[in-house]
């Protein structure tokens, strides 16, 4: 401890000496120290160092890699880092090591300091930054986009979506069309897991145990990963940066790119880091400080979208399933039957039905749908070859190649799912009502993230529910007792609709604890889940679903014993407007416990209305075995 303190003191003294040295030669103004100190405190300088505000302690940088800082205390002392940077910029060039000079390693700091201290900049040497020049030459960029990959339920790390940058290459000929999208580049920030142990993975992921690193990839790899392999839609928001800001973006990436940043799943994650990069490019944005507690990728977009003149409206790049659905929609019923029969025959090892009966243009559409189904079903991406339907794919491709070229598949942007239009992740709500025992209560709810099926569809669609630590506390007005009503540690549901040619499984899974609802005031801890089906009859704008669930729990109401509770659930979701959702469900359950089982019938109806983007009002009524309860709640998203 003492040694560390001494070390810090040494660093500070060294920085001070450098500062004095700098100042004495600079001859700019009599009060250069003050000027340098003021510069070190500016958001622009602190953003270049990736400083972030911290709870209950002084702000410091998220960058871990020691190589990023020139001062030993640079991570926590922006002034020392500025002094060290100025000193390093003035340092003579080591013979033959131009590229290692600070002026070559820190082009973003260099440009900014040259603007802020022009007289000082005249004293800098002129190293030949060949590596930097090669990076700029090899990598011309005309503009950049912030890309959002939609939520992916199959992998926990992707539950909340993902964001990364796309770097657009300039046109090959002046004034010509942009080069093909696939040849652009992507800048990704992701955790670099150091363990295969799932428990350690989750623990380290939440506590910053993994180093996060930047990577630079061809954009087609990101398209393959999200659109094709994981079937996630991509939303591309062009960043309205000036040409100078695009240069600065590349310089910032050059500076920070090689260094690691501890990855925290909850806050210092991919999305947050992207905001820090944007803040470094345009310090007036101050995007990162707007985060509170959690940073979900969707929130990144909503914060960036709220900054005036930063994001253009998004372009939509459809996932493999979305593409298949668009192909399927182009087919007549008999053509759908043919495609379906093709896969049925293939699965059963029977001869393939002939497509020859269809006119060439129709045949092409049917073959395209069948081929896109194989892509989706086998998650084919890039170099991955079909396995299950290899023979069928070759057979279809050979026929398809003899038919006229397809028109590009036009897929309308699903505006209701546009991710920047949804509310932010954290919901805090207050309400009141009357419970089953006819007692009046007031309630408070906190849902850190993210979306409930009963909430309006805007930004999320109607088939996804993701909740963490959703907590409701109630206070009974008569007795004055305050208790936890419900705590859902993890609450997920997926209700993909049945399509003409496919029957995806709906499912639900919840881990939590809650009060028993028949007035016993006892707590039940439970795990609940089960499969089901959902569909929109006649393509109507509502969705009905059914689930068969099983709950395993431990309840104080059953003499502190284990219980099992199978149930059938049926429900309907009616998105009356993008910001207004009406929903109802009905549940019948049979509880098996060592001491006393029971049958319960429960119905619930709810209406939820989002006023503007950040306020939600809901009213609900429930019936449990003929006894009613009701309540209302107002919530705020932040």
């Amino acid at each position, binding site marked *: 401890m003492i040694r560390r303190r001494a070390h810090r003191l040494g660093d500070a003294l060294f920085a001070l000496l450098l500062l004095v040295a700098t100042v004495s030669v600079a001859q700019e103004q009599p009060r250069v120290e003050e000027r340098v100190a003021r510069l070190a405190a500016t958001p622009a300088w602190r953003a270049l160092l990736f400083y972030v505000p911290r709870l209950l302690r002084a702000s410091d940088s998220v960058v871990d890699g020691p190589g990023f800082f020139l001062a030993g205390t640079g991570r926590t002392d922006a002034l020392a880092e500025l002094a060290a940077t100025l000193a390093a910029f003035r340092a003579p060039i080591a013979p033959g090591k131009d590229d290692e000079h600070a002026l070559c390693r820190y082009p973003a700091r260099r440009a900014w300091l040259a603007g802020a201290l022009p007289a000082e900049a005249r004293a800098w040497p002129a190293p030949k930054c060949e590596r930097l020049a090669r990076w700029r030459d090899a990598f011309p960029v005309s503009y950049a986009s912030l890309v959002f990959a939609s939520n992916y339920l199959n992998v926990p*790390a992707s539950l909340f979506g993902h964001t990364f940058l796309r770097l657009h290459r300039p046109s090959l000929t002046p004034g010509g069309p942009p080069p093909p999208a696939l040849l652009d580049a992507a800048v990704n920030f992701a955790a*670099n897991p150091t363990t295969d142990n799932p428990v350690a993975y989750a623990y380290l992921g939440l506590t910053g145990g993994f180093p996060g690193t930047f990577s*630079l990839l061809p954009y087609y790899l990101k398209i393959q990963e999200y659109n094709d392999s994981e079937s996630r839609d991509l939303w591309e928001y062009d960043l309205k940066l000036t040409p100078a800001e695009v240069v600065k973006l590349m310089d910032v990436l050059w500076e920070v790119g*090689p260094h690691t940043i501890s990855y925290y799943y909850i806050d210092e994650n991919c999305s947050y880091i992207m905001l820090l990069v944007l803040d470094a490019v345009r310090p007036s944005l101050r995007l990162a400080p707007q985060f509170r507690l959690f940073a979900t990728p969707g929130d990144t977009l909503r914060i960036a979208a709220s900054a005036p003149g930063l994001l253009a409206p998004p372009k939509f790049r459809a996932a493999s399933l979305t593409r298949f659905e668009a192909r399927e929609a182009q087919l007549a019923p008999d053509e759908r039957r043919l495609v379906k029969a093709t896969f049925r025959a293939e699965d059963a090892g029977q001869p393939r039905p002939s497509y020859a009966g269809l006119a060439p243009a129709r045949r092409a559409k049917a073959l395209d749908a069948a081929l896109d189904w194989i892509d989706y079903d086998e998650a*084919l991406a890039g*170099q*991955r070859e079909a396995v299950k339907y290899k023979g069928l794919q070759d057979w279809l*491709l050979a026929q*398809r*190649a003899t038919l006229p070229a397809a028109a590009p598949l036009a897929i309308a942007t699903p505006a209701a799912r546009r991710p920047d239009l949804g509310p932010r992740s954290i919901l805090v709500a207050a309400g009141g009502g009357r419970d089953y025992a006819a007692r009046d209560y007031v309630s408070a709810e906190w849902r850190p993230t993210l979306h409930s099926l009963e909430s309006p569809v805007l930004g999320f669609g109607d088939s996804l529910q993701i909740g963490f630590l959703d907590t409701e506390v109630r206070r009974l007005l008569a007795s004055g007792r305050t208790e936890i009503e419900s705590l859902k540690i993890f609450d997920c549901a997926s209700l993909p609709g049945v399509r003409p040619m496919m029957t995806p499984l709906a499912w639900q899974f919840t881990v939590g604890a809650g009060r028993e609802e028949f007035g016993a005031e006892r707590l039940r801890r439970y795990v609940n889940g089960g499969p089901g089906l959902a569909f929109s009859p006649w393509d109507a704008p509502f969705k009905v679903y059914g689930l068969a669930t099983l709950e395993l729990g431990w309840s104080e109401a059953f003499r502190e014993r284990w219980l099992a509770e199978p149930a059938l659930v049926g429900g309907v979701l009616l998105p009356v407007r993008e910001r207004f959702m009406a929903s109802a469900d009905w549940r019948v359950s049979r509880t098996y416990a060592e001491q006393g089982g029971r049958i319960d019938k429960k119905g619930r109806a709810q209406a939820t209305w989002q006023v503007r983007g950040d306020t939600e009002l809901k009213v609900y009524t429930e019936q449990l075995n003929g006894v009613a309860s009701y309540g209302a709640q107002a919530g705020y998203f932040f």
Partner: protein
Amino acid sequence: MKIVSGALVAALSMVTSHAMAAGYGAAGCGLGSIVIGPKPGFMQVIAATTNGTFASQTFGITTGTSNCAEKGEKGDKAGDEEDTGVKKKKKEKKEKKKQQESSTVREQTDFVALNLNTLKRDAAKGEGDSLAALASTLGCDVAVYPQFTKSLQGAHAQIFAAKQPADVLKNIKTQVQANKALNDACDVASNDVALNK
């Protein structure tokens, strides 16, 4: 709160085990020159994306070639050893030109290798992003993209009969060379270099 976070970790790890079971291999290096390892497969490429294994030296692109250059050079060396005397002489002549073109050809081969399934599908349909990107990688003028697409669709069976990406690329270049308009508008003279890959 400890119990809660413990449960959260447990809940996460339950679903994580599925993802972790995939066992990603090592992958990755700089832009446009992704190494295809001994076990090709998309997950390996994914590993490059999510694991960020190549952020080491200045973003994987410091020298424009990064750790991929090493792999490329190794590959060339292996080629040298196999070369016969005659071929070697011929090779020396072209050495300089090759050096300029090798990175382009590597980019082309990588593009074909990493997009093979997509190319196969798009070429059969005569439509798709991957075809324009390939045409651009082959240096074709924008004006001939439709013709390029048509040519690939027409020769779909011949082109994709090949199993190795380098051979598919060679077949594609052969098609382009066989069509005068395409040959003039594209830059596919470096066909033989691709064979060495």
